[in-house]
């Protein structure tokens, strides 16, 4: 039909009028029209099957009875799984734990990252090595590092209690970090902070280096010292990246799984402590799905968590914008 249009007439006019063979023409046409789709197809097929479809299908599973131990019990459950959620004490407990740990880990994490980025944002010797150094926690497997922290926070032989005893706390009755909500949350938040501070510091540092230098020169005339420089100039100028890191930590923090799992005395139980004092939602989903074998209910929980993440990420983004934008 339109084969003649595709022939690159302009470029070939100088050459002897040798019409490309039918096969060649077909090949070029195929290359222009079809190959681009073939290049993006692997991504869309694989992502569709193993990424997108499960998330949508999760919605179907959430509305059904779906148990691993009783395959005969099927059929629609309607919103049964969701209404069960509302009165499920384990869920509300896990929600509280998740938020508690989230706040204890996000706020210090981002402030420390700012301060470290500010330290790195100097003319330094061996610039790159400092930056590589702060990335070590980011690379270390959480499963491995949490096991070290579990020893660090252990009741009888832990370094944390040893430090406390040096300043006069708990010499006779050492603190059992896993036992109470507040202490287990602090221990877990410490692990999260350790892992992510350096990574966020690098994000802030890269934003800091795009700030025009004359902004600082103007401020220096007004007599702003380094500390005021950081809070009055640098932070407002890198606000978009701050919002970005707040959203990232919200998405990651509310799905926290590895740290509370491995901090448990018996990780495979997924109970989050003897009284679920540090069981997070992601952990509860795992327990409901693969210990209680109730996949339908676990799917409903996943959707609830998804909604919560959306709302909290939106609110946090707005809050961060307000805080940075009032100057």
């Amino acid at each position, binding site marked *: 039909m339109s084969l003649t249009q595709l022939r690159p007439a302009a470029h070939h006019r100088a050459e002897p009028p040798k019409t490309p063979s039918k096969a060649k023409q077909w090949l070029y046409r195929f290359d222009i029209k079809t190959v681009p789709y073939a290049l993006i197809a692997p991504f869309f097929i694989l992502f569709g099957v193993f990424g997108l479809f*499960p*998330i949508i299908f999760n919605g179907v599973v959430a509305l059904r009875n779906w148990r691993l131990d009783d395959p005969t019990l099927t059929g629609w459950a309607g919103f049964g799984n969701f209404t069960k959620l509302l009165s499920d004490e384990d869920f509300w407990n896990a929600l509280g734990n998740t938020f508690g740990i989230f706040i204890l880990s996000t706020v210090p994490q981002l402030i420390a990252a700012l301060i470290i980025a500010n330290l790195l944002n100097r*003319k*330094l010797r061996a610039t790159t090595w400092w930056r590589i150094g702060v990335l070590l926690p980011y690379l270390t497997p959480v*499963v491995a*590092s949490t096991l070290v922290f579990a020893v660090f926070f252990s009741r009888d032989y832990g370094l944390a209690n040893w430090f406390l005893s040096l300043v006069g706390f708990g010499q006779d009755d050492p603190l059992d970090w896993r036992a109470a909500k507040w202490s287990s949350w602090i221990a877990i938040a410490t692990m999260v902070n350790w892992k992510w501070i*350096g990574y966020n510091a690098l994000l802030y540092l890269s934003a800091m280096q795009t700030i025009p230098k004359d902004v600082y020169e103007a401020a220096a005339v007004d007599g702003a010292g380094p500390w005021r420089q950081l809070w009055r100039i640098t932070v407002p100028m890198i606000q978009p990246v701050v919002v970005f890191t707040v959203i990232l930590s919200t998405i990651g923090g509310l*799905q926290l799984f590895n740290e509370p799992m*491995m901090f448990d005395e018996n990780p495979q139980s997924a109970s989050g402590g003897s009284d679920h004092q540090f069981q997070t939602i*992601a952990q509860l989903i795992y327990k409901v799905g693969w210990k209680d074998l109730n996949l339908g209910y676990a799917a409903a929980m996943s959707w609830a968590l998804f909604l919560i993440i959306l709302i909290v990420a939106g609110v946090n983004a707005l809050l961060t914008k307000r805080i940075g934008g009032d100057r």
Partner: protein
Amino acid sequence: MSTHRFALRAPQDTPGTWKTYTGLVLIMLLSAFPVYWMFVIATSTDEAVTKMPPSIIPGNQLMVNLNEVFTLQDVYFTASLINSFITATTITLATLFFCSLAGFAFAKLRFRGRNALMVVVILTLTVPNQLGVVALYIVMGKLQWNGTLLAVIAPGLVSAFGVFYMRQFIAHAVPDELVESARIDGALTLRVYWNIVLPAIRPALAVLGLLTFVMAWNDFQWPLITLNGTEFPTSMVALSDLASGNYVIYRRVLAGAFVATVPLIILLLIGGRQLVRGIMEGAVKS
């Protein structure tokens, strides 16, 4: 006042003072301490671990502890390291290949629906796919892949972030004229990809490869769900096995943890520069 001396310069032109360096050294110590402590316990005896105050220098029991870890029944530690290498390497190579192909198409080829499809890629970036694990488990069940490495590898073969990152990089690193002139010479799309695009994007491949390998190696939740209790755990699943049970032997657990961390420390030493650059570039673009 000392503050005034530097205030006329932007921070990045201000030389670090002794305070800056003291702060940085402190941060390095905090950063490295847990990994160092892992090594100390991995090399110690039970007595050294339970001593108060704890000994902060490594012992000489590393080989003894490692031997125990590797010969433990039901943990499959040796196999788990091999499994982790297989999964992480396959995932990394596939991600680099598929994402650079798609990134090239989005950056340099013209086809109907290009912009709309790119929007789809960007939207999928924001979806936390951890939330689909329940349904993913059912899908893998239908395929009868649960409990095999295939179940871990398949969802990792592509990533929306990889496509996005490659598209951004190729758009800048490969000049349109170069692609045009190769086409006029009669080169087909795949030849352009192979001869022009691939050589130009080596730095981006290094960055994406490192990030992908680290993520695949450290992945825990999904491998735990699909591989737990089988004879084919990844090293993270094997570690959680090692740490479970009524009586946990710290020196043994941390010897295992240290072994599973060493490959990443080596990666950091070899590719740290690229990783730092990749993370910092990613921040500016997003």
